[in-house]
Protein backbone atom coordinates (compact mmCIF):
# COMPACT_ATOMS: atom_id res chain seq x y z
CA UNK A 1 0.00 0.00 0.00
CA UNK A 2 1.39 3.34 -0.99
CA UNK A 3 1.07 6.47 1.02
CA UNK A 4 -1.92 8.67 0.13
CA UNK A 5 -1.67 11.46 2.66
CA UNK A 6 1.35 12.41 4.66
CA UNK A 7 1.44 15.21 7.19
CA UNK A 8 5.08 15.99 7.80
CA UNK A 9 5.90 17.96 10.97
CA UNK A 10 3.06 20.45 10.45
CA UNK A 11 3.03 23.46 12.77
CA UNK A 12 0.14 25.89 13.14
CA UNK A 13 0.23 28.74 15.62
CA UNK A 14 -2.49 31.16 16.66
CA UNK A 15 -0.66 34.08 18.28
CA UNK A 16 1.22 32.56 21.20
CA UNK A 17 -0.63 29.25 21.12
CA UNK A 18 0.76 26.40 19.09
CA UNK A 19 -2.39 24.50 18.14
CA UNK A 20 -0.60 21.94 16.01
CA UNK A 21 2.96 21.26 17.05
CA UNK A 22 4.98 19.15 14.64
CA UNK A 23 2.28 16.55 13.98
CA UNK A 24 3.25 13.65 11.71
CA UNK A 25 0.68 11.27 10.38
CA UNK A 26 0.16 9.07 7.38
CA UNK A 27 -2.86 7.56 5.65
CA UNK A 28 -2.21 4.76 3.22
CA UNK A 29 -4.43 3.90 0.29
CA UNK A 30 -7.54 2.05 1.37
CA UNK A 31 -6.87 2.58 5.05
CA UNK A 32 -9.17 3.83 7.81
CA UNK A 33 -7.12 5.91 10.21
CA UNK A 34 -8.37 7.35 13.47
CA UNK A 35 -7.22 10.62 14.97
CA UNK A 36 -8.22 10.86 18.61
CA UNK A 37 -7.48 13.04 21.55
CA UNK A 38 -9.17 14.95 24.35
CA UNK A 39 -11.12 18.18 23.70
CA UNK A 40 -8.91 21.00 22.52
CA UNK A 41 -6.06 18.74 21.52
CA UNK A 42 -5.90 20.15 17.99
CA UNK A 43 -7.67 17.42 16.01
CA UNK A 44 -9.91 19.74 14.03
CA UNK A 45 -7.02 22.15 13.47
CA UNK A 46 -5.03 19.30 11.89
CA UNK A 47 -8.00 18.71 9.62
CA UNK A 48 -8.24 22.40 8.76
CA UNK A 49 -4.53 22.44 7.94
CA UNK A 50 -4.96 19.44 5.63
CA UNK A 51 -7.98 20.93 3.84
CA UNK A 52 -6.37 24.32 3.35
CA UNK A 53 -8.53 26.35 5.71
CA UNK A 54 -5.30 27.23 7.55
CA UNK A 55 -1.86 27.43 6.04
CA UNK A 56 0.70 25.64 8.23
CA UNK A 57 3.63 27.81 9.36
CA UNK A 58 6.03 24.91 9.02
CA UNK A 59 6.00 21.42 7.60
CA UNK A 60 4.53 19.79 4.56
CA UNK A 61 1.25 18.15 3.60
CA UNK A 62 1.80 15.61 0.85
CA UNK A 63 -1.23 14.17 -0.92
CA UNK A 64 -0.80 11.67 -3.72
CA UNK A 65 2.85 12.65 -4.09
CA UNK A 66 2.12 16.37 -4.32
CA UNK A 67 2.70 19.09 -1.77
CA UNK A 68 -0.64 20.74 -1.07
CA UNK A 69 0.06 23.04 1.87
CA UNK A 70 -1.00 26.61 1.18
CA UNK A 71 -3.39 25.72 -1.66
CA UNK A 72 -6.92 27.14 -1.62
CA UNK A 73 -9.51 24.82 -0.03
CA UNK A 74 -11.46 24.37 -3.28
CA UNK A 75 -8.29 23.28 -5.11
CA UNK A 76 -7.64 20.69 -2.43
CA UNK A 77 -11.17 19.34 -2.90
CA UNK A 78 -10.41 19.04 -6.63
CA UNK A 79 -7.26 17.07 -5.79
CA UNK A 80 -9.47 14.51 -4.03
CA UNK A 81 -9.85 15.31 -0.36
CA UNK A 82 -13.44 15.49 0.84
CA UNK A 83 -14.54 16.42 4.33
CA UNK A 84 -17.46 16.77 6.68
CA UNK A 85 -17.83 19.29 9.49
CA UNK A 86 -18.03 18.86 13.22
CA UNK A 87 -20.93 21.29 13.41
CA UNK A 88 -23.10 20.58 10.39
CA UNK A 89 -22.68 23.03 7.54
CA UNK A 90 -25.34 22.22 4.96
CA UNK A 91 -27.06 24.83 2.84
CA UNK A 92 -30.25 25.25 4.85
CA UNK A 93 -32.31 27.01 2.20
CA UNK A 94 -31.99 24.07 -0.20
CA UNK A 95 -33.24 20.50 -0.41
CA UNK A 96 -31.40 17.28 0.37
CA UNK A 97 -31.02 16.68 -3.36
CA UNK A 98 -29.51 20.13 -3.97
CA UNK A 99 -27.05 19.79 -1.12
CA UNK A 100 -25.70 16.57 -2.55
CA UNK A 101 -25.63 18.20 -5.98
CA UNK A 102 -23.41 20.93 -4.58
CA UNK A 103 -20.84 18.27 -3.75
CA UNK A 104 -20.57 17.51 -7.46
CA UNK A 105 -19.56 21.11 -8.13
CA UNK A 106 -15.81 20.43 -8.48
CA UNK A 107 -16.43 17.74 -11.11
CA UNK A 108 -18.78 19.81 -13.24
CA UNK A 109 -17.46 20.63 -16.70
CA UNK A 110 -20.22 23.09 -17.52
CA UNK A 111 -19.61 26.80 -17.85
CA UNK A 112 -22.06 29.66 -17.67
CA UNK A 113 -22.73 29.59 -21.43
CA UNK A 114 -23.78 25.94 -21.32
CA UNK A 115 -26.33 26.92 -18.72
CA UNK A 116 -27.64 30.05 -20.42
CA UNK A 117 -27.92 28.32 -23.81
CA UNK A 118 -29.03 24.92 -22.46
CA UNK A 119 -26.55 23.08 -24.65
CA UNK A 120 -26.59 19.35 -25.28
CA UNK A 121 -23.52 19.03 -23.07
CA UNK A 122 -25.57 20.49 -20.22
CA UNK A 123 -28.49 18.11 -20.71
CA UNK A 124 -26.17 15.11 -20.84
CA UNK A 125 -24.26 16.10 -17.75
CA UNK A 126 -27.42 16.87 -15.79
CA UNK A 127 -28.90 13.49 -16.65
CA UNK A 128 -25.76 11.78 -15.50
CA UNK A 129 -25.50 13.92 -12.35
CA UNK A 130 -29.07 13.17 -11.43
CA UNK A 131 -28.37 9.46 -11.59
CA UNK A 132 -25.21 9.89 -9.55
CA UNK A 133 -27.00 11.91 -6.88
CA UNK A 134 -29.71 9.27 -6.57
CA UNK A 135 -27.07 6.58 -6.37
CA UNK A 136 -25.29 8.41 -3.54
CA UNK A 137 -28.57 9.09 -1.72
CA UNK A 138 -29.49 5.44 -2.06
CA UNK A 139 -26.06 4.46 -0.77
CA UNK A 140 -26.43 6.54 2.39
CA UNK A 141 -30.09 5.57 2.73
CA UNK A 142 -31.65 9.01 2.27
CA UNK A 143 -33.22 8.59 -1.17
CA UNK A 144 -36.74 8.67 0.28
CA UNK A 145 -36.27 12.21 1.65
CA UNK A 146 -34.50 13.74 -1.33
CA UNK A 147 -37.05 16.53 -1.77
CA UNK A 148 -37.12 17.58 1.89
CA UNK A 149 -35.65 20.91 2.94
CA UNK A 150 -32.69 20.69 5.32
CA UNK A 151 -34.63 22.39 8.11
CA UNK A 152 -37.13 19.52 8.16
CA UNK A 153 -34.75 16.60 8.58
CA UNK A 154 -33.36 15.26 11.87
CA UNK A 155 -29.82 15.82 13.10
CA UNK A 156 -28.60 12.28 12.46
CA UNK A 157 -29.65 12.39 8.81
CA UNK A 158 -27.94 15.76 8.37
CA UNK A 159 -24.67 14.24 9.56
CA UNK A 160 -24.99 11.39 7.08
CA UNK A 161 -26.03 13.80 4.34
CA UNK A 162 -22.76 15.69 4.78
CA UNK A 163 -20.93 12.45 4.04
CA UNK A 164 -23.07 12.03 0.92
CA UNK A 165 -22.22 15.53 -0.22
CA UNK A 166 -18.50 14.84 0.25
CA UNK A 167 -18.83 11.57 -1.71
CA UNK A 168 -20.29 13.40 -4.72
CA UNK A 169 -16.90 15.06 -5.26
CA UNK A 170 -15.47 11.56 -5.79
CA UNK A 171 -12.71 11.91 -3.19
CA UNK A 172 -9.77 9.58 -2.76
CA UNK A 173 -9.59 10.50 0.90
CA UNK A 174 -12.51 11.38 3.13
CA UNK A 175 -11.97 13.34 6.34
CA UNK A 176 -14.74 12.85 8.87
CA UNK A 177 -14.79 15.38 11.70
CA UNK A 178 -16.53 13.82 14.71
CA UNK A 179 -19.18 12.06 12.64
CA UNK A 180 -20.66 10.30 15.66
CA UNK A 181 -21.00 13.37 17.90
CA UNK A 182 -24.61 13.82 18.95
CA UNK A 183 -25.85 10.60 17.38
CA UNK A 184 -27.75 8.00 19.39
CA UNK A 185 -26.62 4.37 19.50
CA UNK A 186 -28.73 3.18 16.55
CA UNK A 187 -27.64 6.06 14.33
CA UNK A 188 -24.06 5.55 15.39
CA UNK A 189 -24.17 1.87 14.41
CA UNK A 190 -25.69 2.75 11.04
CA UNK A 191 -22.91 5.27 10.54
CA UNK A 192 -20.26 2.64 11.24
CA UNK A 193 -21.80 0.50 8.48
CA UNK A 194 -21.83 3.40 6.03
CA UNK A 195 -18.21 4.26 6.79
CA UNK A 196 -17.23 0.63 6.26
CA UNK A 197 -19.09 0.53 2.95
CA UNK A 198 -17.35 3.73 1.79
CA UNK A 199 -14.00 2.20 2.69
CA UNK A 200 -14.86 -0.94 0.72
CA UNK A 201 -15.25 1.26 -2.36
CA UNK A 202 -11.54 2.02 -2.01
CA UNK A 203 -11.84 5.46 -0.41
CA UNK A 204 -9.37 6.04 2.42
CA UNK A 205 -10.76 7.60 5.56
CA UNK A 206 -9.28 9.81 8.24
CA UNK A 207 -11.64 9.75 11.18
CA UNK A 208 -11.59 12.30 13.97
CA UNK A 209 -13.35 11.36 17.15
CA UNK A 210 -13.02 11.71 20.82
CA UNK A 211 -15.45 8.84 21.39
CA UNK A 212 -13.05 5.93 21.70
CA UNK A 213 -15.72 3.27 21.08
CA UNK A 214 -16.57 4.56 17.63
CA UNK A 215 -12.96 4.50 16.52
CA UNK A 216 -12.39 1.05 17.95
CA UNK A 217 -14.58 -0.74 15.45
CA UNK A 218 -13.26 1.11 12.41
CA UNK A 219 -9.71 2.32 12.48
CA UNK A 220 -6.82 0.09 11.57
CA UNK A 221 -4.41 2.64 12.85
CA UNK A 222 -4.86 5.34 15.44
CA UNK A 223 -2.98 8.54 16.18
CA UNK A 224 -3.44 10.25 19.53
CA UNK A 225 -3.03 14.01 19.91
CA UNK A 226 -2.72 16.03 23.06
CA UNK A 227 -2.00 19.77 23.24
CA UNK A 228 -1.20 19.79 19.55
CA UNK A 229 1.42 17.06 19.79
CA UNK A 230 1.25 13.48 18.69
CA UNK A 231 1.66 11.38 21.81
CA UNK A 232 1.03 7.90 20.46
CA UNK A 233 0.35 5.89 17.32
CA UNK A 234 -0.39 2.27 16.53
CA UNK A 235 -3.39 -0.02 16.71
CA UNK A 236 -6.30 0.96 18.91
CA UNK A 237 -5.27 -1.47 21.65
CA UNK A 238 -1.68 -0.26 21.63
CA UNK A 239 -2.80 3.33 22.00
CA UNK A 240 -5.33 2.78 24.75
CA UNK A 241 -2.72 0.92 26.82
CA UNK A 242 -0.13 3.63 26.35
CA UNK A 243 0.38 5.41 29.70
CA UNK A 244 0.72 8.79 27.97
CA UNK A 245 -2.71 8.36 26.38
CA UNK A 246 -4.30 7.35 29.65
CA UNK A 247 -2.72 10.38 31.27
CA UNK A 248 -4.02 12.69 28.55
CA UNK A 249 -7.57 11.43 28.92
CA UNK A 250 -7.76 10.83 32.67
CA UNK A 251 -4.98 12.93 34.18
CA UNK A 252 -1.99 11.62 36.13
CA UNK A 253 -3.76 11.00 39.40
CA UNK A 254 -0.81 12.22 41.39
CA UNK A 255 -1.08 15.77 42.68
CA UNK A 256 -3.10 17.41 39.92
CA UNK A 257 -2.63 21.14 40.43
CA UNK A 258 -6.02 22.07 39.09
CA UNK A 259 -7.74 19.66 41.44
CA UNK A 260 -6.18 21.39 44.43
CA UNK A 261 -7.23 24.91 43.41
Amino acid at each position, binding site marked *: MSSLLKVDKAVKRFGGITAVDGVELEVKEGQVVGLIGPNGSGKTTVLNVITGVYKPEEGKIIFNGEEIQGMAPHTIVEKGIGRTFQNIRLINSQTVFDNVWLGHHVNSKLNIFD*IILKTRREKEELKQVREEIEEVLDFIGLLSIKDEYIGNIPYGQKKILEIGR*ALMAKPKLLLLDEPAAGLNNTESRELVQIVKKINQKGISILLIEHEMEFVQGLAERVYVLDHGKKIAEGTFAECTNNPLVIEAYLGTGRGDKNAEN
Partner: protein
Amino acid sequence: MNKALKILKDNFIYLAFIVVGLLPVFGLPNYQFYIVERGMQNALVVLSLVILLGFTGQLSLGHAGLVAVGAYFYAITVKNYGFSPWISLILAPVVTGLVGMLLAIPSFKLRGPFLVVNTIAFGEIVRILILNAVDFTGGPFGLKGIKPLFSGVYLYYFMLVVVLIFAIVTLRINKSHIGLAFKAIRDDEVAAEIIGVDVKKYKLLSFVISSIFAGVSGVFFANLTGYLNPDSFTFEISSTYLLMVVMGGMTSTTGGFLSALLVTALPEVLRFLADYRMVIYGLILLIYIRFYKVLDIKKIFSKLNFKKSSEVVE
Protein backbone atom coordinates in the same frame (compact mmCIF):
# COMPACT_ATOMS: atom_id res chain seq x y z
CA MET B 1 -56.76 20.78 -10.77
CA ASN B 2 -53.31 20.35 -9.27
CA LYS B 3 -51.85 19.70 -12.66
CA ALA B 4 -53.35 22.86 -14.09
CA LEU B 5 -52.02 24.83 -11.13
CA LYS B 6 -48.58 23.37 -11.63
CA ILE B 7 -48.53 24.30 -15.29
CA LEU B 8 -49.70 27.80 -14.37
CA LYS B 9 -46.99 28.05 -11.72
CA ASP B 10 -44.17 26.90 -13.95
CA ASN B 11 -45.21 29.29 -16.70
CA PHE B 12 -46.37 32.23 -14.65
CA ILE B 13 -43.49 34.33 -15.92
CA TYR B 14 -44.69 33.87 -19.52
CA LEU B 15 -48.22 34.79 -18.53
CA ALA B 16 -46.91 38.01 -16.97
CA PHE B 17 -45.01 38.81 -20.17
CA ILE B 18 -48.02 38.09 -22.39
CA VAL B 19 -50.15 40.46 -20.31
CA VAL B 20 -47.54 43.21 -20.58
CA GLY B 21 -47.15 42.40 -24.28
CA LEU B 22 -50.86 42.92 -24.87
CA LEU B 23 -50.95 46.37 -23.23
CA PRO B 24 -50.25 48.38 -26.43
CA VAL B 25 -53.13 46.57 -28.15
CA PHE B 26 -55.51 48.32 -25.75
CA GLY B 27 -53.96 51.61 -26.75
CA LEU B 28 -52.44 53.14 -23.63
CA PRO B 29 -51.99 56.91 -23.57
CA ASN B 30 -48.40 57.96 -24.28
CA TYR B 31 -47.43 58.80 -20.73
CA GLN B 32 -48.73 55.57 -19.22
CA PHE B 33 -47.04 53.68 -22.00
CA TYR B 34 -43.78 55.37 -21.03
CA ILE B 35 -44.24 54.34 -17.39
CA VAL B 36 -44.63 50.68 -18.38
CA GLU B 37 -41.47 51.00 -20.49
CA ARG B 38 -39.61 52.47 -17.52
CA GLY B 39 -40.97 49.61 -15.44
CA MET B 40 -39.43 47.10 -17.85
CA GLN B 41 -36.16 48.97 -17.83
CA ASN B 42 -36.18 48.84 -14.01
CA ALA B 43 -37.09 45.15 -14.17
CA LEU B 44 -33.71 44.48 -15.77
CA VAL B 45 -31.95 46.09 -12.82
CA VAL B 46 -34.14 44.09 -10.46
CA LEU B 47 -33.17 40.85 -12.24
CA SER B 48 -29.59 41.97 -11.92
CA LEU B 49 -30.07 42.37 -8.16
CA VAL B 50 -31.93 39.06 -7.92
CA ILE B 51 -28.73 37.39 -9.09
CA LEU B 52 -26.36 39.50 -7.01
CA LEU B 53 -28.35 39.92 -3.81
CA GLY B 54 -30.99 37.20 -3.96
CA PHE B 55 -28.75 34.36 -5.08
CA THR B 56 -25.25 35.41 -4.03
CA GLY B 57 -26.10 37.55 -1.00
CA GLN B 58 -23.94 40.52 -2.02
CA LEU B 59 -25.87 43.70 -1.29
CA SER B 60 -25.14 46.51 -3.73
CA LEU B 61 -26.48 50.01 -3.22
CA GLY B 62 -24.54 51.36 -6.17
CA HIS B 63 -26.47 49.84 -9.03
CA ALA B 64 -27.57 53.25 -10.31
CA GLY B 65 -23.86 53.77 -10.98
CA LEU B 66 -23.73 50.68 -13.16
CA VAL B 67 -26.88 51.73 -15.01
CA ALA B 68 -25.24 55.13 -15.55
CA VAL B 69 -22.12 53.51 -17.02
CA GLY B 70 -24.27 51.61 -19.54
CA ALA B 71 -26.43 54.63 -20.37
CA TYR B 72 -23.57 57.09 -20.78
CA PHE B 73 -21.41 54.67 -22.75
CA TYR B 74 -24.26 54.18 -25.20
CA ALA B 75 -25.05 57.88 -25.40
CA ILE B 76 -21.44 59.08 -25.80
CA THR B 77 -20.45 56.48 -28.40
CA VAL B 78 -23.61 57.03 -30.46
CA LYS B 79 -23.75 60.81 -30.20
CA ASN B 80 -20.09 61.91 -30.06
CA TYR B 81 -18.39 59.13 -32.00
CA GLY B 82 -21.13 58.14 -34.42
CA PHE B 83 -21.29 54.48 -33.49
CA SER B 84 -24.24 52.50 -34.75
CA PRO B 85 -26.79 52.18 -31.89
CA TRP B 86 -26.68 48.39 -32.38
CA ILE B 87 -22.94 48.18 -31.86
CA SER B 88 -23.25 50.36 -28.77
CA LEU B 89 -26.05 48.14 -27.51
CA ILE B 90 -23.59 45.23 -27.56
CA LEU B 91 -20.56 47.17 -26.29
CA ALA B 92 -22.24 49.02 -23.41
CA PRO B 93 -23.03 45.85 -21.36
CA VAL B 94 -19.50 44.56 -22.03
CA VAL B 95 -17.99 47.76 -20.63
CA THR B 96 -20.40 47.71 -17.68
CA GLY B 97 -19.41 44.08 -17.08
CA LEU B 98 -15.75 45.09 -16.90
CA VAL B 99 -16.59 47.87 -14.43
CA GLY B 100 -18.59 45.31 -12.42
CA MET B 101 -15.51 43.11 -12.36
CA LEU B 102 -13.60 45.91 -10.62
CA LEU B 103 -16.51 46.39 -8.22
CA ALA B 104 -16.33 42.67 -7.37
CA ILE B 105 -12.72 42.79 -6.17
CA PRO B 106 -13.48 44.49 -2.82
CA SER B 107 -16.21 41.90 -2.20
CA PHE B 108 -13.51 39.22 -1.81
CA LYS B 109 -12.53 40.77 1.51
CA LEU B 110 -15.48 42.90 2.55
CA ARG B 111 -18.68 41.57 4.00
CA GLY B 112 -22.07 42.91 5.08
CA PRO B 113 -22.22 46.64 5.83
CA PHE B 114 -18.63 47.21 4.68
CA LEU B 115 -19.42 45.94 1.21
CA VAL B 116 -22.58 48.08 1.14
CA VAL B 117 -20.61 51.24 1.97
CA ASN B 118 -18.19 50.29 -0.78
CA THR B 119 -20.94 49.98 -3.38
CA ILE B 120 -22.52 53.27 -2.26
CA ALA B 121 -19.13 54.91 -2.74
CA PHE B 122 -18.89 53.39 -6.21
CA GLY B 123 -22.29 54.80 -7.18
CA GLU B 124 -21.36 58.25 -5.92
CA ILE B 125 -17.95 58.20 -7.66
CA VAL B 126 -19.60 57.39 -10.98
CA ARG B 127 -22.16 60.16 -10.54
CA ILE B 128 -19.56 62.76 -9.55
CA LEU B 129 -17.27 61.73 -12.41
CA ILE B 130 -20.15 62.23 -14.84
CA LEU B 131 -20.94 65.57 -13.25
CA ASN B 132 -17.37 66.82 -13.69
CA ALA B 133 -16.34 65.31 -17.03
CA VAL B 134 -18.25 68.08 -18.81
CA ASP B 135 -16.45 67.58 -22.14
CA PHE B 136 -17.66 64.03 -22.51
CA THR B 137 -20.88 63.87 -20.56
CA GLY B 138 -22.19 67.38 -20.67
CA GLY B 139 -21.90 67.46 -16.88
CA PRO B 140 -24.94 68.94 -15.11
CA PHE B 141 -26.41 70.07 -18.46
CA GLY B 142 -26.74 66.48 -19.59
CA LEU B 143 -26.65 64.87 -23.00
CA LYS B 144 -29.48 65.63 -25.39
CA GLY B 145 -30.75 64.04 -28.57
CA ILE B 146 -29.52 60.47 -28.22
CA LYS B 147 -30.43 58.34 -31.19
CA PRO B 148 -32.67 55.44 -30.14
CA LEU B 149 -32.61 51.87 -31.47
CA PHE B 150 -36.26 52.01 -32.46
CA SER B 151 -39.09 54.39 -31.93
CA GLY B 152 -42.50 53.98 -30.38
CA VAL B 153 -44.07 50.59 -30.02
CA TYR B 154 -41.16 48.75 -31.68
CA LEU B 155 -38.87 49.78 -28.85
CA TYR B 156 -41.51 48.54 -26.42
CA TYR B 157 -41.58 45.08 -27.95
CA PHE B 158 -37.82 44.96 -28.37
CA MET B 159 -37.45 45.73 -24.66
CA LEU B 160 -40.07 43.15 -23.76
CA VAL B 161 -38.21 40.45 -25.69
CA VAL B 162 -34.86 41.40 -24.14
CA VAL B 163 -36.30 41.44 -20.61
CA LEU B 164 -37.90 38.05 -21.30
CA ILE B 165 -34.56 36.63 -22.47
CA PHE B 166 -32.81 37.96 -19.36
CA ALA B 167 -35.60 36.57 -17.17
CA ILE B 168 -35.09 33.14 -18.74
CA VAL B 169 -31.34 33.45 -18.19
CA THR B 170 -31.99 34.26 -14.53
CA LEU B 171 -34.30 31.27 -14.20
CA ARG B 172 -31.74 28.98 -15.82
CA ILE B 173 -28.94 30.21 -13.56
CA ASN B 174 -31.26 29.65 -10.59
CA LYS B 175 -31.73 26.01 -11.52
CA SER B 176 -28.09 25.27 -12.33
CA HIS B 177 -25.09 24.22 -10.29
CA ILE B 178 -23.83 27.78 -10.65
CA GLY B 179 -26.97 29.11 -8.99
CA LEU B 180 -26.46 26.55 -6.27
CA ALA B 181 -22.88 27.72 -5.80
CA PHE B 182 -24.16 31.33 -5.53
CA LYS B 183 -26.63 30.30 -2.84
CA ALA B 184 -23.97 28.32 -1.00
CA ILE B 185 -21.87 31.51 -0.88
CA ARG B 186 -24.89 33.45 0.38
CA ASP B 187 -25.69 30.95 3.14
CA ASP B 188 -22.20 29.96 4.31
CA GLU B 189 -19.18 31.32 2.51
CA VAL B 190 -16.62 29.28 4.44
CA ALA B 191 -18.47 26.02 3.97
CA ALA B 192 -18.92 26.75 0.26
CA GLU B 193 -15.17 27.20 -0.17
CA ILE B 194 -14.40 23.97 1.68
CA ILE B 195 -16.94 21.94 -0.30
CA GLY B 196 -15.11 23.00 -3.44
CA VAL B 197 -16.77 26.23 -4.63
CA ASP B 198 -14.22 28.77 -5.81
CA VAL B 199 -15.79 31.64 -3.86
CA LYS B 200 -13.80 34.44 -5.53
CA LYS B 201 -14.53 33.17 -9.02
CA TYR B 202 -18.25 32.90 -8.36
CA LYS B 203 -18.51 36.26 -6.65
CA LEU B 204 -16.78 37.75 -9.67
CA LEU B 205 -19.14 35.90 -12.02
CA SER B 206 -22.15 37.10 -10.06
CA PHE B 207 -21.00 40.73 -10.15
CA VAL B 208 -20.22 40.54 -13.87
CA ILE B 209 -23.59 39.00 -14.83
CA SER B 210 -25.35 41.51 -12.61
CA SER B 211 -23.44 44.42 -14.17
CA ILE B 212 -24.22 43.24 -17.70
CA PHE B 213 -27.93 43.28 -16.86
CA ALA B 214 -27.58 46.76 -15.37
CA GLY B 215 -25.67 47.93 -18.46
CA VAL B 216 -28.44 46.79 -20.80
CA SER B 217 -30.91 48.57 -18.56
CA GLY B 218 -28.81 51.72 -18.93
CA VAL B 219 -28.95 51.48 -22.73
CA PHE B 220 -32.74 51.25 -22.55
CA PHE B 221 -32.85 54.21 -20.20
CA ALA B 222 -30.94 56.30 -22.75
CA ASN B 223 -33.30 55.05 -25.47
CA LEU B 224 -36.44 55.90 -23.51
CA THR B 225 -35.56 59.37 -22.32
CA GLY B 226 -33.28 60.49 -25.15
CA TYR B 227 -31.67 62.72 -22.52
CA LEU B 228 -29.20 61.83 -19.76
CA ASN B 229 -28.45 63.79 -16.62
CA PRO B 230 -26.45 62.72 -13.52
CA ASP B 231 -29.54 63.37 -11.36
CA SER B 232 -31.10 60.20 -12.81
CA PHE B 233 -28.45 58.03 -11.14
CA THR B 234 -28.46 59.06 -7.50
CA PHE B 235 -28.29 56.95 -4.37
CA GLU B 236 -32.05 57.34 -4.06
CA ILE B 237 -32.51 55.43 -7.32
CA SER B 238 -30.24 52.65 -6.09
CA SER B 239 -32.30 52.28 -2.95
CA THR B 240 -35.50 52.17 -5.02
CA TYR B 241 -33.99 49.24 -6.91
CA LEU B 242 -33.32 47.57 -3.58
CA LEU B 243 -36.93 48.20 -2.56
CA MET B 244 -38.13 46.56 -5.78
CA VAL B 245 -36.03 43.46 -5.36
CA VAL B 246 -37.02 43.04 -1.72
CA MET B 247 -40.70 43.44 -2.61
CA GLY B 248 -40.31 40.87 -5.33
CA GLY B 249 -39.17 38.31 -2.80
CA MET B 250 -35.40 38.61 -3.37
CA THR B 251 -34.91 35.37 -5.27
CA SER B 252 -38.04 35.35 -7.42
CA THR B 253 -37.64 36.27 -11.08
CA THR B 254 -41.37 36.67 -11.71
CA GLY B 255 -41.83 38.54 -8.43
CA GLY B 256 -38.98 40.88 -9.32
CA PHE B 257 -40.44 41.62 -12.75
CA LEU B 258 -43.90 42.38 -11.36
CA SER B 259 -42.64 44.42 -8.42
CA ALA B 260 -40.48 46.53 -10.75
CA LEU B 261 -43.58 47.38 -12.79
CA LEU B 262 -45.70 48.10 -9.73
CA VAL B 263 -43.17 50.19 -7.80
CA THR B 264 -42.45 52.22 -10.94
CA ALA B 265 -46.13 52.81 -11.61
CA LEU B 266 -47.30 53.43 -8.05
CA PRO B 267 -46.15 57.07 -7.65
CA GLU B 268 -47.72 57.87 -11.03
CA VAL B 269 -50.99 56.13 -10.23
CA LEU B 270 -51.13 58.15 -7.01
CA ARG B 271 -50.57 61.45 -8.79
CA PHE B 272 -54.23 62.46 -8.30
CA LEU B 273 -53.50 62.76 -4.57
CA ALA B 274 -51.32 65.81 -5.29
CA ASP B 275 -49.51 66.84 -2.10
CA TYR B 276 -50.31 63.63 -0.24
CA ARG B 277 -48.91 61.45 -3.00
CA MET B 278 -45.62 60.48 -1.39
CA VAL B 279 -47.26 60.00 2.03
CA ILE B 280 -49.69 57.47 0.61
CA TYR B 281 -46.91 55.88 -1.46
CA GLY B 282 -44.88 55.34 1.72
CA LEU B 283 -47.91 54.03 3.55
CA ILE B 284 -48.70 51.49 0.83
CA LEU B 285 -45.12 50.24 0.88
CA LEU B 286 -45.22 49.98 4.69
CA ILE B 287 -48.44 47.95 4.57
CA TYR B 288 -46.92 45.80 1.89
CA ILE B 289 -43.78 45.11 3.90
CA ARG B 290 -45.99 44.22 6.88
CA PHE B 291 -47.70 41.53 4.79
CA TYR B 292 -44.38 40.78 3.27
CA LYS B 293 -43.72 38.55 0.30
CA VAL B 294 -47.21 38.77 -1.16
CA LEU B 295 -45.59 39.05 -4.56
CA ASP B 296 -43.44 35.99 -4.15
CA ILE B 297 -45.08 33.72 -6.67
CA LYS B 298 -43.51 30.61 -5.21
CA LYS B 299 -45.02 31.36 -1.81
CA ILE B 300 -48.46 32.05 -3.26
CA PHE B 301 -48.49 28.77 -5.09
CA SER B 302 -47.19 26.81 -2.14
CA LYS B 303 -50.08 28.24 -0.11
CA LEU B 304 -52.46 26.80 -2.68
CA ASN B 305 -51.43 23.49 -1.23
CA PHE B 306 -49.80 21.26 -3.68
CA LYS B 307 -46.53 19.52 -3.34
CA LYS B 308 -43.48 21.65 -3.81
CA SER B 309 -41.63 20.61 -6.85
CA SER B 310 -37.91 20.24 -6.37
CA GLU B 311 -37.24 19.14 -9.90
CA VAL B 312 -33.99 21.01 -10.06
CA VAL B 313 -32.50 18.88 -12.78
CA GLU B 314 -34.68 18.61 -15.79
